[in-house]
């Protein structure tokens, strides 16, 4: 569990905060709120009940606080007590934050009030306490009793942050020219307070700028395994080694928040007016959220039954037993045998053997990574593991181990690598593939070409010649990402990880927060930092320019014009390996009519040999009657896959022979026949299948000769 948090924000809403200064196009208050909203929405986004916050308005028109009777607590209002902030609170606060008509109100008094609120709320319990004060430093500040404030802040361990627009900050490099002397004095005062409290004092510009760097959520390490690193079997051999170890994640993908599904409430959806029905209304509803209701998944079960209408019957969940599929055989497993297929295992990290690190292919890494450290606070275990880590390191070896994290969990094979840093030693662990996890797709080698006759060729249009190899060599070298240290010396750095942030994660988070505060504003573009690695660095490109030009010239890569792709008319007919002219043989065969049982090959062959449009037209006609027969004779959905295949082939072929019209005519009439139940009854399911398989009209995007626009094609599919 994360620590409990209580933060009080003090926002200066004085009249002077409503001004635009120093050439900025937003008011000081809007600027300050950028920062405050960022902090608040960050807290809200965690969804944690114990991450609480309160807000105090400084220099408000009225006075609303428990110490308000005293004069120097006037023009200070508690806008929100310390509590968990929700959307409704954000909306409320949004209404309250606007420049007031006064510049009266003491920042120091507001600080005292904030401390008071925290003391009341947190008492002496364990909380992370924090006060953030944003003010422009105008107005009068009371410098009495500062020691009391400092001692209280320190005593309760409150983190204090004071920021303001155009505050001088030598370190960051801001200095306001012609500063109002009162502001200068107040700045000095606030700086002293914050320094004495070990707090932070800074200029708003820096704080807003730092918002651009995404905040990385720290996750408390949780062990994913505590047990023994074992060598040998301690049950049978007294030569077995057992070292108590713990396993923690080293990498774990942080997922962006997922959107949930909602639909409009029925009363809204059906257009009926008013009348909240008796449905349960979830607690707080936003303006547009109130019209939404959750989506639930309802699962029903069906089995085949030839005697039933439609060939299927519904079965209640209670009537079903658990089981598995073995091929197409259903294997039922009774409840008592539930674990029968589970392999019995005991938790352990057992060493299988060792391999040489240089003979391991890095691409075999199959998963995220973990670390293995010795059981904490166990010096002997630490000593033992350290000797193992160093031995691996010195031998340039990795260990292969079998890991079972909990009793009866499936074993996995992992690779263990030594990691030795000055103050930290551990094993790094990653999962290895099993035999079943490897897909043996094969590809021709890249450094030679083997011809059909088995001859090895080293000069070929698919192989680079020496010029190309040379040009590539130079280009790659010129594009080396080099890092330098402060003195400008080259240093070895790993690939960027620490300063690369998940674009989708932070984009979605930023969008949600922006929408929460400003519901009607468009979503801001992604922060620059998220796309910093999306392009080659300019500097690098300049250096490499000459080599790139050379490489492009030597490579002589040509883009294939989109039209040339997939056009069949001008193409050579496919030939078998021997190069035999099968088409000549086909000619001799004289296949006049397309036979239904060999329809697809014969249709293709007819088109390939067609010399006149008439032949093509006739072939389509024949296919059409074959397909219609298949539909008419289909028992339920029995022939639907054949039909889809047939349609798909006709469609593809007519696109490549540039006769889209024939298909479009065919599919239009077929649609009508299907929906009017002219082909053996209700065939709506088939139409649905056609839709899903995207076998609708051929549109212009697919074939230039088509007269069908994208909208027309869409409309054709969606219309019932």
């Amino acid at each position, binding site marked *: 569990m994360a620590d409990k948090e209580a933060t009080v924000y003090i926002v200066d809403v004085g009249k002077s905060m409503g001004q635009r200064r120093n050439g900025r196009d937003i008011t000081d208050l809007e600027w300050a709120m950028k920062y405050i909203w960022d902090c608040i929405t960050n807290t809200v986004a965690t969804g944690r009940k114990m991450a609480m916050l309160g807000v105090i308005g400084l220099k408000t028109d009225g006075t609303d606080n428990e110490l308000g009777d005293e004069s120097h607590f006037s023009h200070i209002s508690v806008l929100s007590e310390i509590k968990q902030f*929700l959307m*409704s609170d954000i909306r409320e606060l949004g209404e309250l934050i606007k420049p007031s008509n006064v510049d009266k109100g003491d920042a120091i008094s507001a600080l005292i009030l904030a401390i008071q609120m925290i003391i009341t709320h947190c008492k002496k319990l364990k909380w992370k306490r924090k006060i953030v004060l944003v003010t422009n430093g105008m107005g009068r500040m009371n410098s009495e009793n500062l020691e009391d404030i400092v001692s209280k802040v320190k005593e309760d361990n409150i983190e204090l942050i004071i920021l303001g627009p155009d505050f001088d900050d030598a370190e960051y490099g801001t200095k306001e020219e012609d500063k109002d002397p009162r502001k200068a004095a107040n700045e000095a005062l606030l700086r002293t307070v914050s320094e004495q409290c070990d707090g932070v004092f800074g200029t708003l510009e820096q704080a807003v700028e730092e918002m651009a760097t*995404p905040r990385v959520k720290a996750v408390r*390490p949780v062990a994913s395994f505590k047990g023994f690193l074992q*060598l040998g079997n301690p049950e049978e051999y*007294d*030569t*077995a*080694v057992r*070292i*108590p170890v713990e396993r923690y994640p080293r990498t774990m*993908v942080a997922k962006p928040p997922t959107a949930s599904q909602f639909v409009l409430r029925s009363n809204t959806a059906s257009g009926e007016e008013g009348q909240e029905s008796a449905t349960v209304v979830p607690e707080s509803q936003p303006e547009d*959220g109130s019209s939404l209701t959750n989506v639930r998944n309802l*699962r029903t079960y*069906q089995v085949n039954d030839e005697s039933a209408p439609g060939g299927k019957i519904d*079965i209640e969940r209670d009537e*079903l037993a658990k089981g*598995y599929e073995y091929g197409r*055989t259903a294997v039922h497993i009774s409840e008592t045998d539930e674990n029968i297929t589970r*392999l019995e295992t*005991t938790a352990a990290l057992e*060493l299988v053997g060792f391999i*040489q690190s240089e003979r391991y*292919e*890095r691409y075999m890494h*199959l998963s995220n990574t973990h670390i293995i450290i010795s059981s904490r606070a166990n*010096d*002997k275990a*630490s000593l*033992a593991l*350290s*000797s193992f880590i160093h*031995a691996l390191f010195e*031998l340039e*070896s990795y260990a292969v181990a079998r890991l079972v994290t909990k009793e*009866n969990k499936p*074993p996995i094979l992992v690779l263990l690598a030594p990691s030795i840093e000055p103050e930290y030693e551990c094993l790094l662990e990653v999962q290895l593939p099993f035999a079943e996890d490897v897909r043996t797709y*094969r590809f*021709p080698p890249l450094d030679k070409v083997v011809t*059909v006759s088995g001859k090895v060729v080293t000069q070929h249009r698919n*192989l*680079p*010649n020496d010029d190309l190899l040379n040009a590539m060599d130079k280009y790659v070298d010129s594009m*080396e990402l080099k890092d330098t240290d402060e003195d400008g010396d080259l240093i070895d750095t790993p*690939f960027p990880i620490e300063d690369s942030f998940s674009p*989708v*994660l932070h984009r979605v988070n930023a*969008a949600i927060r922006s929408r929460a505060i400003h519901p009607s504003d468009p979503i801001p573009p*992604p922060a620059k930092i998220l796309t910093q690695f*999306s392009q*080659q660095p300019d500097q690098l490109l300049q250096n490499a320019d000459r080599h790139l030009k050379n490489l492009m010239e030597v*490579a002589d890569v*040509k883009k294939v014009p989109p039209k040339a792709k997939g056009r069949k008319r001008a193409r050579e007919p*496919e*030939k078998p390996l021997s190069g035999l002219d099968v088409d000549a043989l086909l000619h001799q065969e004289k296949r006049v009519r397309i036979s239904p049982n060999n329809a*697809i*090959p014969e249709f293709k062959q007819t088109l390939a040999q067609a010399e006149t449009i008439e032949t093509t037209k006739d072939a389509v006609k024949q296919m059409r009657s074959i397909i219609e027969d298949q539909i008419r004779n289909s028992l339920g959905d029995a022939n639907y*896959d054949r039909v*889809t295949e047939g349609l798909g082939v006709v469609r593809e072929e007519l696109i490549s022979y540039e006769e889209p019209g024939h298909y479009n005519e065919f599919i239009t009439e077929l649609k009508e026949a299907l929906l009017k139940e002219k082909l053996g009854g209700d065939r709506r399911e088939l139409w649905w299948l056609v839709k*899903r398989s995207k076998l609708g009209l051929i549109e212009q995007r697919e074939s230039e000769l088509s007269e069908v626009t994208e909208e027309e094609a869409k409309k054709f599919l969606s219309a019932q």
Partner: protein
Amino acid sequence: MADDNYNREDDVVEEEEELDETGYKSVRDAVLFAIEVSDSMLQPRPSADPKKRSQESPATAALKCAYHLMQQRIISNPRDMIGVLLYGTKQSKFYDEDESSRGDLSYPNCYLFTDLDIPSAHEVLELRSLVEDEDEAKDILEPSEEPVSMANLLFCANQIFTSKAPNFVSRRLFIVTDNDNPHGNNKSLRSAATVRAKDLYDLGVIIELFPISQVDHEFDTSKFYDDIIYKASPMDPEAPAYLKPESKTTDAHDGISLLNGLLSSINSRSVPRRAQFSNMSLELGPNFKISVSGYILFKRQESARSCYVWLGGEKPQIAKGVTTQIAEDSARTIEKWEIKKAYKFGGDQVCFTPDEQKGLKDFGEPVIRIIGFKPLSALPFWANVKHPLFIYPSEEDYVGSTRVFSALYQKLLKDQKAALVWYIARKTAGPVLAVMMAGEEKVDENGVQKMPSGLWIIPLPFADDVRQNPEATLQVAPESLIDRMRTIVQQLQLPKGVYDPQKYPNPSLQWHYRILQALALDEDIPEKPDDKTLPKYRQIDKRAGDYVFEWSEELDKQYNQITANQAKMTTLAKRPAKGDAADKAAPPAKKIKAEAGSGNIQEEVQKHFAKGTLSKLTVASLRDYLASQGRATAGKKAELLERVEELLETKF
């Protein structure tokens, strides 16, 4: 049949990655074995090794391969089909036809032993008995006196594919034969066969040949088969030129190596190649692009989830689940277009329009863009989040892609460099920063490719994905202790010092299906799993045992020194809790125990067990004991006691 497509859709929801680009086709594979039955195919080839008395003939080896593939695909591709067609047999069988049917046989001397379908348990059993049971085998595996017409065989296969596996993306005919010239010089039979082969090609069926050389005669594909096999697969137009080793002749003269050779070449083609994406731009620099296709070569194979079975019918039937979405307030069924997406935030929903929603993940068109290069050593071992992606050039969009890709590959391999790439897999996928490295081709002992040459894309973790290391105590081991451990490590190298995944089948996956098979076939449940991942304990003891003792002695010595030093340094302070475990770790040196600080909880528990006073132990020590045995530690004391007792009873 059409139903199978629904499952596809479910898969897409779960596994967004496995997207296909095939449009109307169902992403499944159908393999039909066509195994020739002839005197020479049935002639056993004795093993050269006198110890292995095997009588493997080419035909039985082929059947074994089919059986093996069938079992394997039930696990790895449960929706794919397989069938076995014998040809050249005296008997004929095709669906409803056999010798007893009246009229002419459509496909004489073709025996459809296993129909093309997702295999059932019964069919697995049948095929196994054909492989194992000699008598039945003798009946069916009797060669005909008439030669079979290849055209007929090919058309028979055509009909099986057309009717049983319509609309599959991949349909393959595996021909296993030792006859390189079935029709000699008979021109009309030859041309009939070539025409039927062209039909298969146009239908989208790929013929894959597994030639077996005869003892005195090398298989020569140019005599006949080069006329019926086509270069590129029709479904995969960008497939690279024909891979020669595909038809590498299995010419082993003894049965065992014949079987192994055949197995490895069939295994290498067990799954059709499916691209993750095709013709994506690989951008080497501004305005310099080539096209590549991506493939997943490593991916954790999960066992299928349990399903619901209906026992009310004649035989158990899988119930198909249908999900409908309803509105919570009114329980009315809703359509997809009605659904709105919203994020939960501060107890409410924050809404976006579908376009806005899509736009959030849109960082541009799919691309692999090279940002720059670094040495491969700049990729830390731990910087990994998921399986890699393999990419290979395609000439479809840019002519010349292959040679540029090859040049890049050779350069990266030669200098051990890697590229940093900005990688967007799909428009909706969101960008990833990745490292692109070269991988060399690897072949097995039969010359069959195990790992292709190409480039690999390894996604890097973002800063958000990196976890901080927990604090830990560190006692750096002295040289003397490291030296002794080093000896142990040296003793226990895996063969050739490499990890070969093929040697380690997933034990829980195999066990799961082994049991299902036994249940489905009503066999005895096997007692012990064959778990190849278990360490070889006896070997470890034999090879490293003595060295472990030496290391263990040194560990005790070093540890005692540390505790002595610590005691000196902290005479006043109360010993921190961390000493506790360590104190226990020094049992009286009766027997050398190579334990590093696990304490003597075992002995204590055993003592109590012997006396029958286990219940006197605290819950904490029971848990400690169970944990030290790798057992679950959850539950109440009574449950813990039961578990401990059970454990000790089986032990002694």
